[in-house]
């Protein structure tokens, strides 16, 4: 989805849109995944240092991920509208850092922004590149809610598989021998 690895520009801010958090959805996420009293019980939450109900950080982060996926889909549609073939996004190998900075309370509106800060071809998966992304979420008062440093896969458009790898791939299609090669090259 979205742009090809080669077309991704660094240090450009991509607005991912906003999400309004209701008390009901904060409690529902909390009950499913993070049932600590300040995420699920508005009364008991008053005794916490938050002074009231707050969203699980994992909830605000999951919503941020949803906003990012939606933005990728929108970019894909935009490129198709221009008659261009969009690129392909892959799954993520991980998150280097996540800092929860300010709690999200019922009624808050959180706005998400993505910046690609670095990219390089993957060493382990031929034909794919790694993107290093910073995702920041702010609330309606401009306070930073969280700061994340994410890693994602993006497909290379201009990738030509080296002869060595093409041969290896052909060999993996042979039963038994293929299994041995896959095991060795992991």
């Amino acid at each position: 989805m979205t742009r090809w690895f080669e077309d991704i520009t660094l240090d450009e801010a991509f607005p991912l849109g906003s999400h309004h958090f209701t008390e009901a959805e904060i409690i529902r996420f909390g009950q499913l995944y993070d049932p600590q009293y300040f995420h699920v019980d508005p009364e008991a939450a008053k005794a916490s240092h938050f002074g009231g109900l707050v969203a699980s950080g994992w909830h605000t982060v999951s919503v941020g991920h949803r906003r990012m996926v939606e933005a990728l889909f929108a970019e894909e549609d935009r490129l198709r509208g221009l008659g261009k073939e969009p690129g392909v996004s892959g799954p993520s190998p991980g998150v280097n850092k996540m800092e929860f900075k300010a709690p999200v309370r019922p009624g808050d509106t959180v706005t998400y922004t993505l910046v690609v800060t670095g990219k390089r071809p993957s060493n382990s998966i031929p034909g794919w590149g790694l993107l290093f992304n910073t995702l920041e979420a702010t609330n309606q008062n401009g306070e930073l809610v969280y700061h994340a440093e994410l890693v994602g896969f993006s497909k290379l458009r201009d990738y030509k598989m080296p002869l060595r790898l093409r041969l290896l791939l052909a060999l993996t299609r042979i039963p038994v021998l293929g299994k041995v090669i896959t095991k060795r090259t992991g």
Partner: protein
Amino acid sequence: MNPVTANRRHYEDLTIGEIIDLGATSVSKEMIVAFAREFDPFPFHLDEEAAKASLLGGLASSGWQTAALTLRMLGDRFLNGIASMGGLGFSDLKWKKPVMVGDTISGTATISGLRRSRHHPERGIVTIDLDMSNQSGEPVMTMRLANLIELRDPAAPLVEGENP
């Protein structure tokens, strides 16, 4: 004294090296699709055919779902038994292998660090290393969490080296 957490374990009660067994959770197709619809609607988390053609090689849970399910296990086995004040964040989250339909994940949480907060010395910070594997013992996810915890005695003086 916080009435909700008064009888729970506090900062002073924790020890570096303590290992918490997180139990096991099985991941169904319905769970994967429901989470993906709400938070991660990539075709490779929603559709079996699209998933087969992707890097994942088959229908697999969103990495954020694997994390959320792990968090739930940590909540049930640990966080709801301590005077938790919420998470500060995490680092080095690695999705090592996709969690496929029908997989069962299990793992441990290890207390790897305990220190007083720099800005709020009346609070403690517990660092927790999470190691999750599938039913074949293959690692699927690791990460390091930082969580705030109440001190039973918030006025306790800082000991040298307690706040590195």
